[in-house]
């Protein structure tokens, strides 16, 4: 059974078809990359999968369960994890607190008004345990405001993982990273991908070709091609779509 199954999804903005009859699946153990030129409707699609936007038609199944009508938090509770294109974290809080919040959400301690010091300390220990061994280990007590862009990208990934998702939707995890940081991120994603299936929306073709087990190409809201890395490299329509816009398919 597919962990994520999207069938015949449609979203219109006025006269514009932003999502045009999109169907795709993410299987267990798979890193399914979604590529496409700017304005192809990738963010619109991600936002519908996460629940921030309601589709006009079509269905989204998570582990066989229909989540099309569920709210963002309800989908997260069922195991849908995500990262944002522009990182979205608790900026005044430290790395440790950001991760602790995810751990807390997972454990469901959220309406406790009486667990002041002891309860929090336990969560912080768990957060530090997650940070240990990552490049952020030394930054545990640093507020997000003082982190570099690359560090925020890493933290966001950790926060998503702390929620122990069944599937991860990654919205351009490489965006804005330098070359070395990108290489590290690719390694991290490869490790994570061995445990957790992913839908990877990405512009960085090097990363996509290095990571993806399957690639779908979205152009003007439609999936024009889907297949293995080799198949997509050879696909004439894909070259057309990219070369027509810009030579991004290196």
């Amino acid at each position, binding site marked *: 059974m597919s962990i994520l199954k999207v069938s015949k999804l449609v979203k219109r903005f006025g006269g514009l078809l932003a999502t045009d009859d999109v169907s795709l699946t993410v299987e267990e153990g798979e890193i399914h990359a979604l590529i496409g030129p700017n304005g192809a409707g990738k963010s619109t699609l991600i936002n519908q999968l*996460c629940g*921030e936007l309601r589709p006009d038609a079509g269905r989204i199944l998570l582990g066989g369960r229909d989540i099309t009508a569920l*709210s*963002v*938090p*309800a989908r*997260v*509770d069922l195991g849908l994890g*995500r990262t*944002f294109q522009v990182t*979205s*974290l*608790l*900026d*005044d*809080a430290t790395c440790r*607190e950001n991760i*602790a*919040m*995810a751990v*807390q*959400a*997972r454990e469901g*301690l*959220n*309406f*406790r*008004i*009486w*667990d*002041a*010091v002891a*309860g*929090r300390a336990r*969560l912080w220990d768990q957060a530090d345990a997650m940070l240990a061994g990552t490049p952020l280990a030394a930054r545990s007590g640093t507020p997000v405001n003082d982190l570099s862009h690359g560090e925020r990208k890493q933290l966001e990934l950790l*926060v998503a993982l702390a*929620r122990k998702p069944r599937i991860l939707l990654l919205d351009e995890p490489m965006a804005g990273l330098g070359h070395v940081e990108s290489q590290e991120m690719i390694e991290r994603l490869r490790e994570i991908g061995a445990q957790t299936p992913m839908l990877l929306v990405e512009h960085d073709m090097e990363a996509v070709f290095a990571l993806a087990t399957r690639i779908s190409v979205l152009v003007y809201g439609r999936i024009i091609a889907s297949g293995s890395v080799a198949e997509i490299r050879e696909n004439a329509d894909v070259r057309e779509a990219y070369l027509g816009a810009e030579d991004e398919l290196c």
Partner: protein
Amino acid sequence: MRIAFALLAAAALIALPFVTEAAGQPALLSLATRVLIYAIAAASLNFILGYGGMISFGHAAFFGVGAYTVGILFAHAGSEPLFGFIPGSKQMLITLPAALVISGLFAALIGALSLRTGGVQFIMITLAFAQMLFFFFVSLTPYGGEDGIIIRRTNDLFGLNMRDKTTLYFVILAIAALFFALLWRVVNSSFGAVLKGIRQNERRMAALGFAPYRYKLYAFVLAGMGAGLAGALMANFLRFASPDMMHWTKSGEFMIMVILGGVGSFFGPIFGAAAFLTLETFLAGWTEHWQLAMGAILLVVVLGTKGGIAGLLAKLWGARK
């Protein structure tokens, strides 16, 4: 250092009635009592405003509801029951919990509706509900209407002589201390962490699986109960409850106390309430146009400082280190 400071503050608060009596300044004791009560109200507003980011412009509604709970229960004490089946009471152990429950119910209803909006609409809809309650009590002629309701005697508690201003001060001080201890635990609890997270980034919290509405509503109810407690104490202190207690300018005063003290600072509301009432008392004694000076001071604080008195103290504290 902090503990020493806390002990010093506690000692000062306990010694205060004896000092004012020795100095022959009973008015100061009454000022201090009002500061304690307003500090509770302002801290409850700060809980949703400073920690939760909800700018409620109708917080005085719950203050008034708490006060009227005490007043109406007193009016029915020893006479016929309210609605035919709710007996009145003069016992603080009954009236205070009753005020908490009733103001909590009002907050649940108003919050459930208001929190469906956001931004300026939230500010205005909370104001609207407070205005509705204000006019409701204005038209409530059986309980004094516009003139309010007189409570002939302060509620009884453990056979203490509640007429004595010093005794009443200590009772209110004890309740305030308990309130701030509880509030400290709540602010630093798992729930408090969620609330602070929602203020910083609602989208992020939703992506972690928190449905913001529920948490905001919960906080709104807790804050309403805090204001209700303060109102009930104020009714006992003034032996009076009136619609003016929930006038929109009273909500404005609570906000001023919060910002004077420092938004989102735990002890800020205490400083803010003290600063506001002290300014009001002394400026009013000095000139009848005291509001001009108050307005100017408020303007300077809002435009010129970040963090209010608590922020200033923190800076001084940092500079000394």
